[in-house]
């Protein structure tokens, strides 16, 4: 190892005299709390849906959830959009501000927050009135109330504003730091948003130019295939917008929190570059769709396996950092270091459990993306089994872990109910293991997803009942895990002990730091990577759009929900 210790450069150059401004602190805290509030509503819906798989239908008894599909729409929109947008907006604003040593523009943060809240209200009201039970994929010709599409658009614009605030801060920073490398923590935060800016263009244009005018009767009809193509252009990359904020925590914070260090600065940057460049993979959600040629399906098969690579790099970097930390704490042997990680710190245990859940999450993802193998599992519960391991665990558990130190940092209050916080990640983790076992096995046996299985009119196929029961039991335990988390946060906010000083963010150092010269400089040329991304998008999506456009707006609306 000694050969490696060439330079012990800090990831973040010391920003002299930096203090998070009260306005920045306020809006970031509001984002984090608003996201968790959305999560709280969403997981309650999720709990009831889990019971549906176990054959228990509670929908008619609950206000604002008249059908399974209404609840499922709320669950998807609140958890997959609002929760993740709010957390990413708050969390990556903070990391960018701290890394660059300058506060982001408070007015932009405020504007973004207001738009996200308005978006939630506009989309939420029609959902709870039963006028937008179109699920979070909102495929036309299913047509929701116009307020739903308007709300979704506002929520997306709120994320673009955060990106603008980040890029503005970066431009200002560059003026004062000519010729310096972008601090890694800022780099990964800003690249996440650049990736999302490029990726969100598909669904955003579908929503703004096709669906919103159509819902106002300004267009004659919808184009079901084109809408699906635009949606999934964004719909796959959105998973990286969910995941990369967790990667930021895993790369930049976890190494320090376990007593280790990040191995390589450039390897981390390369992983994020690959996420920015390999945007056009969305067709792999459409292997079973007609009207899309094999050229596109094979191309995205290869690109999707390409985008699995940066996650494999991440696994290497993070495990390396964990091992350094575990050995520094006295861990011995091939795996002994793993037991010596600071498991008693819930901020760490939640995130290490998140990483463990991400292993089967990633593997099942590769199975979904596997072209003709997708025929066995497409639109079965295998798919939600997969993404509750990724979004529902790798991401959500990571945000739980982050919150355990971030909320004290932002509020100046110590974490309350510490013993509950120590148990909470384990409860949630146990729940997801049982839940995912149920959904994944059910999917392989043909159990369809997004289906009110408690009220079907045919005999469930062999194996579905066990799979459904496990899904219901696991989902209930996950819900209990969430409730414990919300209790900890609630009591921290109202009666956590005041701290004298909140200290600094616990970010890591690197063994191999950012070189001030040489080949690595190209990593910081953000515009090159954006250009490369657009070229690849043109190669994959260009031929489809050229042959398909103009939109065939010949499908009349359908509102049978």
């Amino acid at each position: 190892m000694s050969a490696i210790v060439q330079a012990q450069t800090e990831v973040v150059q010391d920003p002299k005299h930096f203090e998070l401004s009260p306005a920045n602190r306020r809006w970031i805290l509001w984002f984090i709390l608003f996201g968790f509030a959305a999560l709280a509503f969403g997981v309650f819906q999720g709990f009831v849906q889990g019971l549906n798989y176990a054959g228990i239908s509670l929908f008619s008894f609950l206000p604002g959830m008249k059908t399974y599909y209404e609840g499922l729409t709320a669950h998807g929109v609140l958890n997959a959009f609002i929760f993740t947008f709010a957390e990413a907006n708050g969390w990556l604003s903070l990391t960018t501000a701290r890394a660059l040593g300058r506060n982001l523009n408070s007015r932009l943060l405020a504007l973004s927050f207001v738009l996200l809240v308005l978006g939630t209200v506009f989309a939420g009201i029609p959902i709870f009135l039963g006028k937008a039970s179109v699920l979070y994929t909102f495929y036309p010709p299913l047509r929701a109330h116009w307020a739903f599409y308007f709300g979704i658009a506002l929520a997306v614009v709120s994320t673009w504003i955060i990106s603008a605030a980040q890029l503005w801060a970066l431009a200002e920073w560059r003026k004062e730091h000519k010729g310096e490398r972008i601090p890694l923590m800022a780099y990964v935060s800003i690249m996440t948003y650049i990736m999302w800016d490029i990726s969100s263009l598909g669904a955003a244009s579908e929503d703004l130019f096709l669906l919103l005018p159509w819902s106002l009767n300004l267009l004659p009809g919808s184009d079901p295939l084109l809408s699906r193509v635009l949606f999934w252009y964004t719909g796959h990359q959105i998973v990286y917008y969910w995941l990369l904020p967790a990667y930021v925590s895993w790369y930049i914070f976890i190494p320090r929190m376990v007593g280790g260090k990040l191995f390589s600065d450039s390897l981390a940057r390369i992983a994020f570059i690959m996420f920015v460049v390999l945007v056009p993979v969305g067709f792999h959600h459409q292997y079973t769709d007609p009207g899309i040629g094999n050229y596109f399906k094979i191309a995205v098969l290869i690109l999707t396996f390409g985008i699995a690579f940066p996650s494999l790099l991440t696994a290497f970097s993070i495990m390396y950092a964990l091992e350094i930390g575990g050995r520094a704490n006295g861990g011995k042997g091939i795996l002994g270091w793993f037991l010596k990680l600071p498991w008693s710190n819930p901020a760490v245990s939640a995130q290490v459990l998140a990483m463990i859940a991400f292993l089967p999450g990633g593997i099942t993802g590769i199975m979904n993306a596997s072209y003709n193998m997708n025929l066995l599992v497409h639109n079965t519960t295998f798919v939600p089994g997969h993404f509750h391991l990724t979004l529902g665990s790798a991401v959500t558990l990571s945000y739980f872990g982050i919150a355990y130190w971030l909320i004290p940092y932002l509020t100046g209050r110590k974490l309350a109910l510490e013993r509950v916080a120590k148990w909470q990640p384990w409860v949630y983790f146990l729940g997801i293991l049982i839940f995912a076992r149920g959904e994944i096995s059910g999917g392989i046996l043909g159990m369809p997803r997004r289906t009110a299985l408690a009220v079907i009119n045919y005999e469930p196929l062999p194996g579905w009942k066990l799979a459904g029961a496990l899904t219901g039991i696991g989902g209930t335990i996950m819900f209990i895990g969430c409730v414990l988390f919300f209790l900890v946060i609630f009591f921290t906010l109202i009666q956590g002990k005041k701290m004298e000083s909140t200290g600094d963010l616990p970010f890591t150092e690197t063994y191999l730091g950012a070189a001030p010269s040489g080949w690595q400089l190209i990593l910081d040329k953000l515009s090159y990577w954006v250009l490369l991304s657009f070229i690849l998008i043109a190669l994959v999506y260009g031929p489809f759009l050229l042959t398909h456009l103009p939109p065939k707006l010949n499908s009349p609306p359908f509102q049978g929900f």
Partner: protein
Amino acid sequence: MEKLEKIYVWLSVGILLAFILALIYASVILAVRVPTDVGQIVPNPGEALASATMRTPPFDQPGVQEVAPGKYKVVVLGQAWMFNPPSIELPVGADVTFYGTSLDIDHGFFIPNTDVNMMLLPGQVSILRHRFDKAGVYRIICHEYCGTLHHLMTGTITVK
């Protein structure tokens, strides 16, 4: 790069390449295919898409047709909330090509425990081939959300 890092990177690349080759083998040699682009249903000016679909072959005749000894063409229309035809009978060993589309919204056509899994989209034509070697009753499930009674949209294939 350090040695360990290099081994890891090449191992990762190798595994991913092996997966891709295996899938292409399954597609080309074993002929496990996914639906592709076979052209759209185009309405005449002023004509509704659903009417155009019902007059466009093969969708003017939903049901089972034996096109050659042992070879069958099964034409399926999806509409909220049923399949037309709702039940299909086939002999053991039938080599079937399914043709499917939708008259209203996105539907799914899925037969659990087989590789028959395709979307039925308005104006688009889905084609998949499957050989039914085992006798029994197979369930057809709509596995794309299509409104309030989506969960009741099913059918059967009886192979005997």
